[in-house]
């Protein structure tokens, strides 16, 4: 409804079809064989059954690279990264924890020097994760990566909005599954002067074969 006030912004997704045949309002089922076979390996479980794509987040990282985040029915999301239109990374993330800073000042500290968000290692749910991004030396703090995400919903649904992320990616190699990584994605989400939170998500790599997209 605000589109008419501020000039409707047609999201990129409307102009170009989503990668892999995903569509807003469509569904996806995630193959859970890997998780069933190794019940103790992961710190999270994938959402079961057919999951509706209830919202779509798009991020333009520049240089022809885009992120598409398909937000699913059960607090989970699939992220597809494309470069020049070609898919080069697919990940499943499950929301694991949310922190609600009491005020804007406390929130800002999450993006500032010395915050947990940017440490070279983070402990989460009993596991240690190593930082993936940033070229700060081991032990030193690396500033979070900042970018904007535009979130759209199916027509007639919730209002679309934008937010700014301050994110850092962490990973640990699973002892039970050498070569397989579990990711810890921490992001400070800035929706507005009085609206923000910090979200922890756990995830792992997916292939096209793991997804049934309808």
């Amino acid at each position, binding site marked *: 409804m605000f589109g008419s006030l501020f000039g409707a912004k047609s999201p990129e997704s409307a102009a170009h079809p989503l990668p892999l045949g995903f569509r807003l309002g469509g569904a996806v089922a995630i193959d859970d064989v890997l998780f069933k076979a190794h019940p103790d390996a992961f710190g999270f479980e994938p959402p079961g059954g057919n999951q509706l794509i209830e919202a779509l987040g798009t991020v333009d990282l520049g240089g022809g690279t885009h*992120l598409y985040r398909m937000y699913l029915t059960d607090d989970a999301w699939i992220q597809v990264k494309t*470069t020049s239109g070609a898919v080069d990374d697919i990940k499943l993330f499950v929301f694991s924890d949310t922190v609600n800073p009491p005020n804007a000042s406390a929130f800002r500290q999450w993006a500032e020097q010395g915050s947990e968000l940017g440490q070279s290692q983070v402990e989460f749910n009993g596991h240690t994760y190593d930082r*993936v991004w940033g070229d700060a030396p081991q032990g030193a703090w690396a500033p979070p990566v*900042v970018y904007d995400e535009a979130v759209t919903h199916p027509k007639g649904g919730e209002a*679309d909005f934008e937010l*700014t992320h301050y994110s850092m990616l962490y990973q640990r190699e699973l002892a039970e599954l050498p070569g397989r990584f579990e990711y810890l994605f921490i992001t400070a989400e800035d929706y*507005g002067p009085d*609206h923000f939170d910090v979200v922890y998500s756990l995830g792992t790599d997916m292939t096209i074969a793991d997804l049934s997209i309808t």
Partner: protein
Amino acid sequence: MKRSTTATLVLMGLTPLFLTACDDDSKQVSQQNFASVDACTQAGVPQATCQKAYDDAQANAEKSEPHFKTYQDCVAQYGADMCRQGTSATEGSFWGPLMTGFLISRMLGGGSAMYYPAGPIFRQSSGSYYSPTGGVFGGSYSSGSSGWRTASASGDGSAGGSRAITASRGGFGSASAAAGSWGG
């Protein structure tokens, strides 16, 4: 984006608007805010000017700062621990924000730079700054010659950007990190 998070109306634009203030082609006025005299001298401003700017800002802070009737009103705009009580002959008791720095104006012209004190600044809880002379502007404390920017034109008190964090993106990790490896 947490799915259960309520959508918010986000106003247009991510960056505060700065307008160029030019007297004429040969003179350009820009401003920079400093948290301390040291930071000020490090940016190339003469020590005496920095000290005077700081002293004047201190002396004028109470006069020029926003005054609130209640502590709560002040905290709402400037944040906890950033408000103190003051008194004046005309108003009686009031609450006002603590000065968090001072502003210096730089005028470039004729091949040299001149610096002038431009009053105190107060950091708002939204992350932007309020200057009694320059209005509200965003951005973090910057130092170095690159920190000079043209004077703010946004004088309305409702500003503060459309985000909780309004610091320059220069201080954060590059988006190219996220465009590159997602681990593994």
